[in-house]
């Protein structure tokens, strides 16, 4: 039976065998993979969204109150009217759900009917469906289509 003195000086255990450390690595990788799958499968990553759609906002209308949010919807054709300090228009979600927006500040260059927009602002009261915007952002889609697919040649020969 070695005394405490000698056991302090006794050689340390040899480094662990490579196979054991390999199994540990595999184990850690499995846990890491499982953690990532849990994260993705729960769909919880959706909570980092940049905006609320009209549908989402109307579904949780009562809890939103007059909190500042970013609201996304498609500009309804024919609803745009320029006001003295910006523009007012109607944005729609699916199934004809719509919100009337009165936004201050000049809208971006691409702002037009039938385009998805994100409006920063808040509902005017805790129950109303009128939205007061402080900024309009245009969210363009990922689709690119030529402006004049059946273009003709101009007299000077250009096709632009």
């Amino acid at each position, binding site marked *: 039976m070695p005394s405490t003195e000698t056991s302090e000086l006794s050689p340390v255990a*040899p480094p662990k065998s490579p196979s054991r450390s390999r199994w540990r690595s595999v184990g850690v990788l499995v*846990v890491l993979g499982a953690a*990532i799958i849990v994260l993705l499968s729960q769909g919880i990553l959706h909570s980092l969204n940049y905006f609320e759609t009209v549908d989402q906002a109307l579904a949780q209308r009562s809890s939103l109150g007059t909190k500042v949010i970013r609201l996304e919807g498609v500009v309804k054709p024919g609803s745009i009217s320029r006001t003295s300090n910006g523009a007012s228009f109607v944005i729609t979600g699916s199934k004809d759900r719509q919100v009337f927006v009165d936004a201050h500040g000049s809208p971006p260059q691409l702002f037009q009917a039938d385009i998805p927009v994100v409006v920063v602002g808040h509902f005017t009261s805790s129950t109303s469906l009128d939205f007061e915007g402080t900024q309009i952002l245009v969210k363009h889609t990922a689709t690119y289509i030529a402006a004049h697919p059946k273009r003709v040649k101009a007299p000077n020969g250009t096709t632009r």
Partner: protein
Amino acid sequence: MIRTAWLVAKKDLLIERRSRVLLWQVLPFGAMALLLSGLALGPAHAGTSSAGPGLFYLVMLFVALLMINRSYVIESTPGTRASVQTLGLDPAGVFLGKSLALCVELWLSGLVLLAGTVLVLHTGLHGALVALPSVLVTLAAMSAAGTLYGALTAGAQGAATLLPVLTLPAFAPLLVAGERSFSAALTHSGLWEWWLIVAVALVAYVGVGILLYGVLEES
């Protein structure tokens, strides 16, 4: 691995208990940073703002940076690292031990600064208590990530200034998830989602640390 972890954690905490750097240097710094964030918000917003959780975590990031740096400075005496290496300690155990010690230190500072946030920034006490478990998990994840990144910069030229550049990007998701779970606790909504994210982040950082710490320490 576990035994090595205990040994290393005990060693780091013992040094901390004797030097009292956390108590006399880091905590006053954290308190001052909290006061300054209140001043930065201005008198109109400091007591009513919903920025409390975010500012708490921002201050905790700075505190964590100081503590990570400290965790490696105590080993910077010439020969210390070499002699630790010759002991043949399991690197994964060393990593876990250093993370554990850092975690305890961050938990202590976190509790104090959380109380400070409630006091100074008027963040709801009930909400803060509900958020406490998620705060502890986030700080644990922060200490695991910090230990790994601290090892990357240990002994490098200008390690103290290099550490924030490398570590803060890794802290960004923790800041977001921590802030959201804290805010969710204050408004009683969707707390579990963010809880899960910080828990997964903790598992991920500990896992990556166990895998890679050995690579950093091998000679």
